[in-house]
């Protein structure tokens, strides 16, 4: 199900325009979503000007520059700054991506860089979304090896995987930016299958050592889980690691058909 309008207390109003940095020869405009849980006001969009000669090329560099030089209250998550941890997942210029690997030059053809938190998650503050539901969904696919056969001291050997499967089996954290990417998945809190969760589920369904394949498929077979994906491919478009969750989801659907037809 899709929400068309924001709740009353989430409507964006006003915003402050911060002065341009003194002495800067070249600046880039940033319009950043701000919300403070403590002041009781609606969210706003503040306008900042970043001295592009004084900071790195990525959107995250711009945000860090703002925090260091203009407004220390600006709040966002970041850690590895090289597209591995996924902490800085946010919505930049209308697309969910990682601020650390998104170049300012690739955004909005020289216009303002619009930065918003990941959509449709409760906001903790400014650009920090509440990931509680995300981790609950991850937990719900039971992302661990399940076997009945006792394992020997040697452990279990997996069937050799091709490069494609090996790539898919990587634990890729940045896919948290897939949260609510797909409009069809903006349903109630209950049974949402995010592309990421389905991608991870495929990883366990296709693991040659796992003995719970059927149960895993049972758990996914639901009009509001696997079948809420209409293959609009937004997930593959947004994935900063070039993975294709749509393909993994198609594989799950094929397995569902295979065991019934």
């Amino acid at each position, binding site marked *: 199900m899709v929400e068309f309008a924001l709740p009353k207390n989430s409507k964006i109003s006003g915003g402050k325009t911060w002065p341009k940095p003194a002495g800067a020869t070249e600046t880039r405009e940033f319009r950043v979503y701000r919300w403070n849980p403590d002041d009781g006001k609606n969210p706003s969009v503040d306008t900042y000007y970043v001295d592009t000669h004084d900071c790195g090329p990525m959107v995250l560099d711009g945000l860090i520059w703002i925090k260091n030089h203009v407004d220390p209250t600006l709040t966002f998550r970041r850690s590895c700054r090289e597209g591995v941890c996924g902490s800085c997942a946010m919505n930049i210029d209308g697309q969910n991506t990682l601020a650390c690997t998104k170049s300012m030059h690739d955004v909005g053809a020289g216009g303002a860089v619009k930065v918003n938190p990941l959509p449709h998650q409760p906001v903790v503050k400014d650009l920090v979304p509440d990931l509680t539901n995300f*981790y*609950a969904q991850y937990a719900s696919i039971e992302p661990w090896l399940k076997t009945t056969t006792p394992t020997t001291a040697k452990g279990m050997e997996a069937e050799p995987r091709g490069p494609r499967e090996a790539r898919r089996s990587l634990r890729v954290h940045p896919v948290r930016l897939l949260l609510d990417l797909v409009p069809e998945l903006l349903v109630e809190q209950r049974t949402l299958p995010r592309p990421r969760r389905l991608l991870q589920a495929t990883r366990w369904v296709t693991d040659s050592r796992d003995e719970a394949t059927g149960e895993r498929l049972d758990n996914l*077979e639901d*009009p509001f889980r696997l*079948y*809420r994906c209409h293959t609009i491919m937004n997930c593959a478009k947004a994935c900063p690691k070039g993975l294709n969750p749509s393909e993994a989801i198609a594989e799950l659907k094929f397995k569902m058909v295979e065991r*019934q037809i």
Partner: protein
Amino acid sequence: MSGPSSMRTPLERVRGLGSAHTGTSDFWRQRLTAVAMTLLIVPVIVVVIMLIGRNHAGAAQILGSIPIAIILLLFIVASTWHMKIGMQVVIEDYIHNEKLKIASVMANNFFCVAVALASIYAILKLSSGV
């Protein structure tokens, strides 16, 4: 995230009422009817072109042919079934209220069955020359 459900743990909210263990049959039928329609659409268009400008007697004569009547009947079954499943997906996507959703799915079923039966009846009536 707020309201009465906020006492539940996040995992309980995600698991909800559990998996419905259905959906594959609709998924399969959607593809099945799609393939059937791709195969049937050319003969159906040919039949429709043949029918253009004919009077009742002429139409009854063409539809009196058993293969033509069967092609049209198959097309009606495939397309209304496809329509029913497709519309249900749209309803599930966009209608939030649970009661309204159930009512809409019900209305969708009634509508598709009515369209299918009316079309089938019309073809049978014409092809039997009544």
